């Protein structure tokens, strides 16, 4: 009787949607737990990166101000990108856990958005790393081939 109140569109939406139940829900709960650990580890790594940058700067600042500053700037950019990646992963994990616990559709939408942003940010990091790697790699490779 109650189903008669629903429009055809509602029924179609229900039929054409995947339900987050059973093994899918279990796997998602597991993903939420792993991503939480991964994001916390990322935050710790960010803190260590700041510490490492400070140590490196104090060690190389005597070699000339430009070298020390470039080391500090590169470390700062890397740490900043790393922090945002961990932040997106943490938000994904938190919203996914909330959505699975309370069957909250809004939290599920937000978690999906954070997952997308996480992968997007990693792509940016990979592209930046490849460009920086190519610049430093070309100098290192030329030095190695001179030795060979």
């Amino acid at each position, binding site marked *: 009787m109650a189903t008669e109140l629903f429009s055809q569109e509602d029924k179609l939406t229900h039929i054409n949607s995947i339900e987050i139940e059973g093994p899918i829900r279990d796997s998602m709960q597991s993903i939420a737990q792993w991503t939480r650990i991964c994001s916390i580890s990322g935050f710790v790594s960010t803190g260590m990166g700041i510490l490492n940058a400070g140590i490196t700067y104090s060690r190389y600042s005597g070699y000339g101000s430009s070298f020390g500053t470039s080391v500090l700037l590169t470390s700062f950019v890397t740490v900043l990108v790393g922090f945002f990646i961990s932040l997106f992963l943490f938000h994904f994990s938190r919203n996914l856990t909330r959505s699975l616990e309370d069957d909250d*559709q809004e939290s599920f939408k937000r978690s999906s958005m954070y997952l997308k942003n996480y992968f997007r940010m990693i792509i940016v990091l990979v592209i930046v790393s490849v460009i920086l790697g190519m610049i430093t790699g070309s100098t290192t490779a030329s030095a190695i081939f001179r030795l060979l």
Partner: protein
Amino acid sequence: MENFELGKKDLLTGGGLLMDDQSASEWRQAAGWAKALAILCIVGLCIMLLALAVVFLYSSAGRSSFGSSAETVGVVIGMLLVLSFGGIWVINLFRFSNNTPAAINNCDPLSFEKGIKALKTFFMISTVVSVLSVLVTGIRILVN
């Protein structure tokens, strides 16, 4: 009215979560970015494989620049470990990126489950590597 809408949703979904249009769009986009990342990683692994071949060729010709043969063996074992773990990591990322959009488009829960399980394995490996790298960095900072 709001209660009626909520009740309507509960009757339709059994009170559970649904992959609605907006979430589906976000998951599709996430899978697209994941596929781009997987392709970049495959290229990176291929370059690493090439570097491994170069190291092997130079060491077999007795022209190794890595010092002793033990060091060369160490480099080769390390690279093989990275390649095997990286390979599993990339394969799972690729499986997620392939299965998820297809599952959402065809409304196939089995395919979606495969994609989600691949994503779980991807995050498991990522977490283990991340925790290990934090430990190594911590030890390195303490030693220095």
